[in-house]
């Protein structure tokens, strides 16, 4: 490749040497030395060849990056490509949404759909729903919440405890779990009303950890690290999905089908699809109501809001409560799907994944959340074969998206109301 004119070799070399030096310092303990258990207990193994390879890789990698930057047009063109796709999706939102919904409806019955495909799609839908729920708090109200998983956990544990203690069914517990989560949303919201941005993020992060630690340590209440097993499965109008139901009829007997474990998987898939759709419709609708507009106004300028008679306390609390409620719904679905929950499932990384789905999708964009959820959940699944490089590819993909589309895949705001023609986006 001919070096583009205006490339400063001296500077590139300097930067590469510097990067290599940093890599050498970091790599010395990380790559160069290794503890191995030998005959006389732990021994230090030295791997200087690894270190040299690492440092060289960083050196040439940094140089390549500098040249790439010199060849900016090609790089930018790739970014434009992403932009064009985004534009297309934006313009065709309604037909694309309908097509996606249609595809989602027939997916479990497609020839290529085995148990694995339906399972992964169910997982994606859980995250889509969580993303849409968090979008209320982060995308609309502009409150950076790093502890969203806490509400997911509250929903899951509400259902798990009610279901195992009182034998209540999933459908009874679902609204209760949502209400519990909403209550926790208000509980969290109240003390942090005055906080914004980074400070709010830190407090919500702490809140998420508190919930997880309470669940881990309060053994009598939540079973501690052992979790709660034997969570009831959902029923289809009183019909169970088991071979030999304890009471009443089971699904396959009632419909005269032969028993198959897939029935339940597909049923769960449709439950989460319905829940996610309800979330979507709710968010789309509420965005065009006074509350929704007040959330967005609050995100834009809190002081101006107050001067217009908007009560910032109630507005923020309603955002926290509603966002948390959908987290709670998703949580109780998660509990009924896996039949077993433990605090392990509600670590900070979950919050981070949900938040990155919202941010990658483009704040406030509903379809963007779907695309981002697919990208974040499916890509690591596909890359399972290269298991060691999964997180690397994941991180790389994220960096690329942020370089090309810094405001998210589909960052474009459609007004909630127009003069003359009514309505905004679907």
């Amino acid at each position: 490749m001919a070096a583009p004119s205006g490339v400063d070799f001296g500077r590139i070399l300097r930067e590469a040497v510097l990067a290599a030096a940093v890599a050498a310092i970091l790599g010395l303990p990380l790559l160069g030395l290794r503890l191995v258990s030998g005959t006389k207990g732990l021994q230090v193994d030295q791997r200087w060849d690894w270190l040299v390879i690492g440092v060289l890789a960083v050196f040439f990698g940094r140089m390549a990056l500098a040249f790439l930057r010199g060849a900016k047009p090609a790089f930018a063109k790739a970014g434009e490509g992403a932009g064009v796709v985004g534009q297309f999706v934006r313009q065709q939102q309604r037909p694309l949404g309908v097509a996606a919904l249609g595809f989602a409806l027939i997916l479990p019955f497609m020839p290529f759909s085995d148990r694995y495909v339906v399972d992964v799609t169910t997982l994606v839908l859980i995250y889509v729903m969580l993303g849409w729920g968090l979008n209320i708090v982060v995308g609309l109200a502009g409150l950076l919440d790093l502890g969203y998983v806490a509400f997911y956990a509250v929903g899951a544990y509400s259902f798990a405890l009610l279901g195992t203690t009182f034998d209540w069914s999933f459908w009874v517990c679902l609204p209760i779990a949502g209400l519990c989560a909403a209550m926790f949303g208000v509980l969290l919201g109240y003390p942090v009303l005055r906080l914004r941005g980074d400070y709010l993020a830190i407090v919500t992060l702490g809140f998420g950890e508190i919930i997880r630690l309470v669940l881990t340590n309060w053994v009598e209440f939540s079973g501690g690290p052992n979790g709660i097993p034997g969570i009831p499965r959902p029923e289809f109008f009183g019909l169970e999905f088991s071979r030999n139901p304890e009471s009443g009829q089971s699904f396959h007997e009632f419909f005269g089908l032969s028993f198959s474990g897939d029935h339940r998987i597909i049923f769960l898939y449709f439950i989460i699809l319905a829940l996610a759709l309800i979330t979507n419709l709710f968010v789309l609708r509420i965005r065009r109501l006074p509350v929704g507009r007040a959330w967005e106004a609050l995100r834009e300028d809190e002081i101006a809001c107050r001067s217009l008679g908007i009560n910032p306390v109630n507005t923020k609390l309603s955002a926290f409560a509603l966002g948390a409620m959908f987290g709670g719904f998703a949580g109780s679905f998660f509990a009924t799907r896996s039949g077993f929950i433990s605090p392990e499932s509600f670590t900070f990384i979950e919050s981070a994944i949900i938040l990155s789905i919202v941010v990658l999708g483009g704040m406030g964009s509903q379809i963007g959340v779907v695309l981002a959820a697919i990208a974040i959940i499916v890509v690591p699944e596909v890359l399972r074969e290269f298991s060691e490089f999964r997180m690397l590819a994941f991180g790389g993909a994220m960096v690329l998206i942020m370089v090309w589309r810094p405001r998210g895949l589909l960052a474009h705001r459609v007004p909630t109301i127009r003069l003359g023609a009514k309505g905004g986006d679907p």
Partner: protein
Amino acid sequence: MSKSLLTVEHLTMRFGGLLAIDDLSFDAAPREITAIIGPNGAGKTTVFNCLTGFYKPSVGRLTLFDRSDRTFLLERMDGFRIARAGIARTFQNIRLFPAMSVLENLVVAQHQKLMRASVFSVAGLLGLASYRRAEAAAVDLARYWLDRVGLVDDADRAAGELPYGAQRRLEIARAMCTEPVLLCLDEPAAGLNPRESAELNTLLLDIRESQGVGLLLIEHDMSVVMEISDHIVVLDYGRKIADGTPEQVRNDPAVIRAYLGEADEDEGAA
């Protein structure tokens, strides 16, 4: 004396050791334009912030009388309740909702009314006719004000994209959409060219005439102040140094001293 819209009595505001406003009293009458002027740092914006609940005054009583003769003791109220009582304001550094459309800015201003119509969002979520009617009425009011400030064609653009002068007008329109009894304008003519500021004069006079709204105005641009004010209050270092019609104020020796910095022995020039 005619009935007041707003009375300010012995308003004093201290920030630590700094006395920003010192025992200020004045009245503002309905359907009149009252201007507060004074050199930089005289405490004008602080008066506004006390009136609109952003600061709690250290001492003093602020009373608003609305059209149905209810009285509101503003010094005890939260900012958003003061706004609901009927005081709307604009800001020295424009505070619009930049990512939202022009029309949305005006609809958000009618939050209180629409919130009631949507019955805590329930009627709105169900899409009941009563809510749809209220929303249509809100859009009509917004359209009326867009027409008045000449922004109908920009209604669906993001507010942040508008040129500066248009943003100023939009902020006034937004304040008027709250249907206030008193409109407080913090330097509405700042950054406007002479033509725009002449248009602003017309708009403000028009608001006073046709809406029956009292205006309280902070302004540096004397062409605006002298031309449209009915009543002027002059502040210097937080104290009121003059109070009267534009004619009286223009010829007041204390005002001339404060503005021209004519130093006498004790006070010295600023």
